[in-house]
């Protein structure tokens, strides 16, 4: 059952009405009690009517007594009517006053709390990242000063946010420049050294030159290929990655991807059979290879890697776990950021690309890691119930 939440305004208004009506009722109870006492006294006065039955000797005296009795009776009737009028009109006045005072209270309360409500909305906006807020200072002095402070704070936050954005951009460019320099330098150095060696041998030892020529060419080709790979990975990351989902069996896809690694590395598999997922096949391959590559790089030669595919409710959880170095807790939240890397050789684009590909396929990815014990990536795949596309 949904819990009903009362806002502060509703609570205060309800409390006021409750207290007000209760106090009115208590006061009225007292007045009613007093009126009852009055009624008793009035009824005692009615005994006067009995006095007219006393026959006096003279007719004149009788006439006087009758007149007196009439006067008393009329006064009693008048008193009774006044009492009735009091009961009716006092309750009417009370109700009128109650309604008017409630309206006045609600109106004043609304005026007082309106700026607070605006502040609440503004705070919500700030929470969502919109710092461009200006609230007109109004209301009571304290509220006005609160609004002014709030405006100052939002301005300050906006300035800080802009500065942060500039700093972040600068940092990204610096990081990118550093990575690019480093990554380009890495293959350039062996190329330069190989060329120097070739030149040197060509002049000093032509026989040896022949011998090392093809070996050197091989090194140069390899380093050029590395450079091409580097350019390729930057280019892939910069591109949009729209998903083109198709239906396939994740078990077969995982087996295909793992096959080339199984000869050189110790990979243990535990894959659920006969399941279907709707996913971009190429993206699936890229995600898997990136994570497997990371697992291999962080593990030592004897390290084992576990790849499992298990059912969890209507989802399939693809897990890749290694026994590598692990990721420090403070770095865990940053591993999917572009250009963030702790490896000596790496662009910091691999896991960022993995995250982008998962997002493009509306798939969740989570990571658990412990320094010295290893890392586990889990990809949450939605199970498809259709038949496989042919």
């Amino acid at each position, binding site marked *: 059952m949904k819990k009903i939440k009362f806002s502060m305004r509703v609570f205060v208004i309800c409390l006021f009405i409750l207290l007000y009506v209760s106090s009115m*009722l208590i006061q009225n109870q007292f007045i009613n009690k007093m009126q009852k006492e009055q009624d008793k006294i009035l009824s005692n006065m*009615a005994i006067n009517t009995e006095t*007219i039955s006393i026959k006096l000797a003279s007719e004149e005296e009788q006439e006087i007594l009758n007149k007196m009795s*009439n006067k008393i009776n*009329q006064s009693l*009737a*008048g008193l009774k009517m006044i009492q*009735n009028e009091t009961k*009716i009109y006092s309750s009417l006045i009370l*109700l009128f006053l109650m309604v008017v005072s409630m309206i006045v209270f609600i109106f004043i309360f609304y005026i007082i709390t309106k700026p607070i409500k605006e502040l609440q909305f503004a705070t919500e906006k700030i929470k969502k990242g919109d710092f461009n807020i200006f609230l007109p200072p109004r209301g009571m002095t304290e509220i006005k000063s609160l609004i002014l402070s709030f405006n100052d704070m939002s301005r300050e936050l906006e300035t800080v946010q802009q500065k942060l954005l500039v700093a972040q951009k600068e940092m990204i460019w610096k990081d990118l420049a550093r990575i690019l320099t480093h990554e380009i330098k890495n293959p350039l150095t062996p190329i330069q050294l190989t060329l120097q060696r070739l030149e040197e041998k060509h002049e000093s030892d032509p026989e040896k030159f022949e011998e090392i020529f093809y070996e050197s060419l091989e090194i140069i080709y390899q380093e050029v290929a590395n450079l091409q790979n580097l350019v390729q990975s930057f280019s892939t990351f910069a591109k949009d990655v729209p998903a083109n989902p198709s239906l396939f069996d994740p078990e077969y896809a995982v087996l295909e991807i793992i096959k080339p690694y199984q000869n050189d590395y110790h990979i243990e598999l535990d894959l659920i059979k006969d399941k279907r997922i709707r996913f971009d096949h190429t993206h699936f391959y890229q995600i898997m290879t990136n994570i497997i590559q990371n697992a291999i790089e962080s593990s030592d030669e004897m390290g084992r890697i576990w790849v499992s595919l298990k059912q969890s409710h209507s989802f399939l959880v693809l897990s890749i776990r290694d026994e590598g170095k692990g990721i420090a807790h403070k770095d865990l939240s940053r591993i999917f950021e572009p250009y963030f890397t702790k490896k000596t050789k790496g662009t910091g684009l691999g896991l960022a690309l993995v995250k982008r590909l998962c997002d493009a396929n509306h798939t969740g990815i989570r990571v658990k890691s412990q320094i010295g014990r290893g890392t586990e990536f889990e990809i949450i795949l939605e199970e498809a119930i259709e038949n496989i596309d042919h």
Partner: protein
Amino acid sequence: MIGSLLYKTYLNIVSLSVLLFSNYVGNSVSFSPLSMQNVGDNIVCSAHLLNAFENDFEEIFKSGKEIRVWFEFKALNNSKIIHFEKFYHAFKWDVNSRVYYVELQEQSFTTTAKTTEELVYLLSVVEFPFYRAKHRGNISIELTAYLPKIYMDEINKEFDLMLLWNLKKPSVKKEINII
């Protein structure tokens, strides 16, 4: 129309305020159903006022002022008033002879009542003829009662006796078909 609506709203507000903030009871007056009887060319209509003088009337009865209970009789044909009559039942306490003098205007009848119960009965029974020969078709008959404002000369103040009926005019309606 608007006036009647506003008056009804006012009555409801008064009822609510009395209910919330007062121990005032007053009298919840109503009419018994109208009964009709053919007597020659006339239809004799009769009804009783119920619960009209139960509370707070004792002092008024004995005030020695002539007090009239007014009745309005209306006959409507297709929302058009075809007959209207206004009459009263009056009473006055005579302190000397210790009786109530009662006049029933519609019956041109005057009498005395010794007790309050007798007076209440005389005041409550309404009986009047309606000349039917003039009218044909579906006729709606409506009887309403109300109390006047009285001026108490001994205390120099006017009072609205309708307060004793909680400001509500009792009324009764009946549809008849005259062939």
